[in-house]
């Protein structure tokens, strides 16, 4: 069963028409890499799914629900989390407070102390920094915090926008291990990436976008082997 399915999705930034009928499907428990050049429409696709574009048409279904009419905050409550490219750690707030924000919508149904303890176990780098201001950490640590914040309420699916960007290789590997662990827990992942090789080694399947359209779909293994397609659509 599809966890996320878009059909004929169009999106606009003001007058600029950036998505031209994107139809993608991500199965429950699947890890999908969404790749392609800058400006291909990858970020716009996940922003549309999250409800952050002012104008979209077409259908978006998540876990059997039609999302189109729902505001962004209701989409999160259905179990759809989003880690934006800029990480968006809130200045002036401690690591713990940033994590707490991820739990507000659960309205006390998740015990805050337990959830933060559990996250601290999965993210040892955050554990000793819980009372430090989030934005004073390194870029990689902030990325970990952004992912931790998005996972703390146990979403069914996470949309990640370029999580490996500008991060030390050792942390990128750590993040990869974390994504595998999430997949083993049954969390569905849609990964937008520029680091194509890394993304393909994590993902089950790959979708390539170009100029606001889906141009290619295959298993990750097949795309890894096909240097020509990679060259044509993903080369910088």
């Amino acid at each position, binding site marked *: 069963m599809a966890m996320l399915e878009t059909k004929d999705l169009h999106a606009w930034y003001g007058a600029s028409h950036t998505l031209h009928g994107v139809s993608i499907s991500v199965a429950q428990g699947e890890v999908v890499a969404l790749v392609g050049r800058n400006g291909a429409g990858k970020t716009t696709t996940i922003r549309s799914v*999250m*409800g*952050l574009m002012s104008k979209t048409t077409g259908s978006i279904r998540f876990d059997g629900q039609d999302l189109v009419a729902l*505001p*962004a*905050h*209701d*989409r*999160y*409550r259905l179990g759809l*989390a*989003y880690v*934006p490219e800029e990480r*968006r750690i*809130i*200045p*002036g*707030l401690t690591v713990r*407070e940033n994590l*707490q*924000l*991820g739990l*507000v*919508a*659960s309205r006390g149904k998740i015990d805050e102390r337990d959830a933060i303890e559990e996250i601290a176990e999965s993210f040892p780098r955050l554990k000793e920094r819980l009372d430090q201001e989030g934005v004073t950490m390194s870029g990689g640590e902030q990325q970990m915090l952004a992912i931790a*914040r998005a996972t703390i*309420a146990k979403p069914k699916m996470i949309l990640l926008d370029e999580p490996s960007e500008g991060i030390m290789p050792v942390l990128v590997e750590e993040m990869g291990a974390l994504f595998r662990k999430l997949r083993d827990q049954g969390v569905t992942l849609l990964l937008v990436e520029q680091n194509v090789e890394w993304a393909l080694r994590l993902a089950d399947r790959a979708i390539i976008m170009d100029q606001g359209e889906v141009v290619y779909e295959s298993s990750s293994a097949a795309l890894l082997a096909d240097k020509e397609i990679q060259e044509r659509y993903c080369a910088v």
Partner: protein
Amino acid sequence: MDTELILMQLFSGVALGAILVLTALGLSIIFGMLGVVNFAHGALFMVGAYAGLWVASLTGSFWWGLIVAPIMIGGFGMLIEYFLIRPLYGRSIDDPLLLTFGLSYVLVEGVRIVFGSDGIPFPTPSSLTGVVDLGVGFFPIYRIFVVGIVFLVVVLLWLGLEKTKFGLIVRAGARDPTMMKVLGIDISKVWLLVFGLGVGLASLGGVLSGPMRSVNPEMGALVLAEAFVVTVIGGLGSLVGSIVAGLLVGVVISMTALFAPEMATIVMFALMAVVLLIRPQGLFGKLA
């Protein structure tokens, strides 16, 4: 000139400043969170004073006026946010500014129609009349009460912002409203409550200032100018700045009234100019 008079005037300045703190905090909270420059803030201060007077005369008790009017006008503020300001989000910052500017005229004229153009005396509650000897001089009990109430409100506001979940959302939402949405938080509800809170603070200021000056439909105009000066001196969006600058402006106005009365109305603008020359971001503001 004897020290007792100076101390008296100093304390009057603190009481005046305390009212300014309330009004400026409301203005600052609304601007910091919603990005709305609320030009109706002074008019809502005035409406709050009338509401307090009205409730007090209906119930025969100042205390009911003090408690009910800010809640009532705070609720009215929420209606303003919901029906008038909300449709303007996402547009230029000028749009809500012009809307609230127009609204302030509507409110002033509305009060004129209902209560008349003349000032109405706002009696000091009998339990708070008179003076008390503080060792250095005799101070009006009511002014001490005003300073105490403002202190209490500021402490509650601080606790609410720093120690509660709602405060966490307000602090975070002021920095990044979009991130709040994708974390499942309905930020428009937070804006509604924050606008109501800001307006409630202004109307509490209005009720408290009533017995110190009587109420009239124009009383909000000067208050608005003072509140703007205070938020600029303190630093836009800084709550600590509003508190320090509010007290500072109150004391400076009051002391100038003693030594150079003809300068009293312009001294705060001079102070603002000096602060802006030395620290353009205000005393506690951060550089953008």
